């Protein structure tokens, strides 16, 4: 019996670029180069490792995003995923976390799955809520924020390093996991992988393929509204001193003047 793994990956604006808002207060995706969210590379990596450990497994990467989001899928395919699904629709512009989780859940159900693997957070929105939302929608256990994960005999196990404690978790498949950047370095695509990726199937679905109405997503369907977005005022230039032997004392003087000591 084949283990069907779906990995959710997001195409995001480069964090080192000049990220900003478009006129409609959505994230501007035109002016900054995009890429596969680095945090989702960890998800692809763990999915591939789980697949390698299984007798028979298939890894599908799934993204919801604009035309260019295909780049993210291509990268994941060249790392070793078997096939890809791209959900793209003009009506998706401005979709929030609740809406994104709807589209992902419907697409995952349509694709068929035993295990969903997500990243810990997207590097642009950084909400870290989409995996929990998708699990809620799919009605499967959420085994999230894992720094270690394994699947054996239909059971997924992992370690979640939380604020107050480190927990060992366990759930029966089908399930959804999300993995952190502590789960292990992601592999680089090999030349062979890059060549092979060109021949791997990428399916394109739109909202009608998923029985989703336009009003349920996009800016129109959004549950939240950004009313204003302002660039943070540049910090007033601070005082910078060169240590000539008294740097520590000067710093103490500053801290005292600010009443920290």
């Amino acid at each position, binding site marked *: 019996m084949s283990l069907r793994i779906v990995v959710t990956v997001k195409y995001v604006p480069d964090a080192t670029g000049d990220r900003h808002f478009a006129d409609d207060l959505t994230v501007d995706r035109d002016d900054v180069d995009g890429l596969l969210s680095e945090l989702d590379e960890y998800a692809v990596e763990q999915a591939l490792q789980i697949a390698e450990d299984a007798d028979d497994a298939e890894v599908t990467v799934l993204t919801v995003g604009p035309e260019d989001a295909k780049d993210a899928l291509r990268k994941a395919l060249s790392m070793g995923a078997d096939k890809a699904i791209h959900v793209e629709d003009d009506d998706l512009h401005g979709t929030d976390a609740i809406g994104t989780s709807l589209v992902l859940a419907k697409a995952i159900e349509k694709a068929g799955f035993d295990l969903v693997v997500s990243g810990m957070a997207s590097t642009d929105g950084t909400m870290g809520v989409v995996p929990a939302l998708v699990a809620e929608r799919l009605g499967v256990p959420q085994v999230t924020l894992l720094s270690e994960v394994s699947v054996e005999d239909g059971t997924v196990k992992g370690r979640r390093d939380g604020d*107050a404690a480190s927990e060992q978790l366990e759930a029966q498949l089908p399930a959804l996991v999300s993995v952190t950047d502590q789960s292990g370095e992601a592999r680089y695509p090999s030349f062979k992988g890059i060549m092979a990726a060109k021949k791997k199937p990428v399916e394109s679905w739109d909202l009608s393929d998923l029985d989703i109405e336009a009003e349920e997503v996009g800016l129109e369907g959004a549950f939240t509204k950004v009313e204003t977005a302002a660039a943070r005022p540049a910090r007033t230039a601070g005082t910078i001193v060169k240590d000539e032997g008294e740097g520590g004392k000067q710093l103490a003087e500053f801290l005292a003047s600010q009443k920290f000591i």
Partner: protein
Amino acid sequence: MAEVLVYVDHVDGAVRKPTLELLTLARRLGEPVAVALGNGAADTAATLAEHGAVKVLTHDASEYAEYLVVPKVDALQAAHEAVSPAAVLVPSSAEGKEIAARLALRIGSGIITDAVDLEAGDEGPVATQSVFAASFTTKSRVIKGTPVITVKPNSAAVEAAPAAGAVEALAVTFSDKATGTKVTARTPRESTGRPELTEAAIVVSGGRGVNGAENFSIIEALADQLGAAVGASRAAVDAGWYPHTNQVGQTGKSVSPQLYIANGISGAIQHRAGMQTSKTIVAVNKDAEAPIFELVDYGVVGDLFDVVPQLTEEIKTRKG
């Protein structure tokens, strides 16, 4: 007056500071009704009352400790049904965000995460967020359902505001999904005796420039003089010099203290994402071109092995 649900983060009855900050914010929106779950839930009442909770809804069951997230969502949903609040506020921890998100979906509401401020607006609460590694400040609203908002630690002052804090038992029926993810073992974090990183008023951090696990004692000594928490950059964590729990940044903790002191940290965007909202920023770095200096209120270009011990000594002397 409208009631506002506040999810209580506590450890065996000891209420964590971010929850008290939430009560301050909740009072701007209405009357805070706290929801405390799990072992020690009822013991939270006195502290919550002191900070403005008019009611404390409590429920204890072994499910909260034995299964991940969903039992708490079931309980918060029960509280939402019982109270019909004007908003639901949850501390922005990793778990808090997951609980809040699932609740929002169930009650047909929108969710805002990581708010750094909240105010009452004509059309409901307005949340301030700091985005794109704190280079932008946004104001947002939930426009459908009961606003569910998670709030970052250090977003408001803890204020005494005595209220009734009447304890009421919350009736909770767990859903059949509640037992989906079993917690088979739990190792509590060892306490260092230092303040909690996200809650601390002062954070002293070390990066690659600290150059070795053994040298972190210099950072710790400064932190202890200031009563501060210790943070680390990812480079220091990846090198194995300091635990991941102390990592500050996009994939670590997000901190917003009164004072942040970065030592031997260059100030990469992913690090800034976790500390840029700090009120006062200080850096010690031997490279005058390091991007961290763009953020600082005060910077010392110098070797941290000279500057930091001298600073620690000077503080000690001044304290007498």
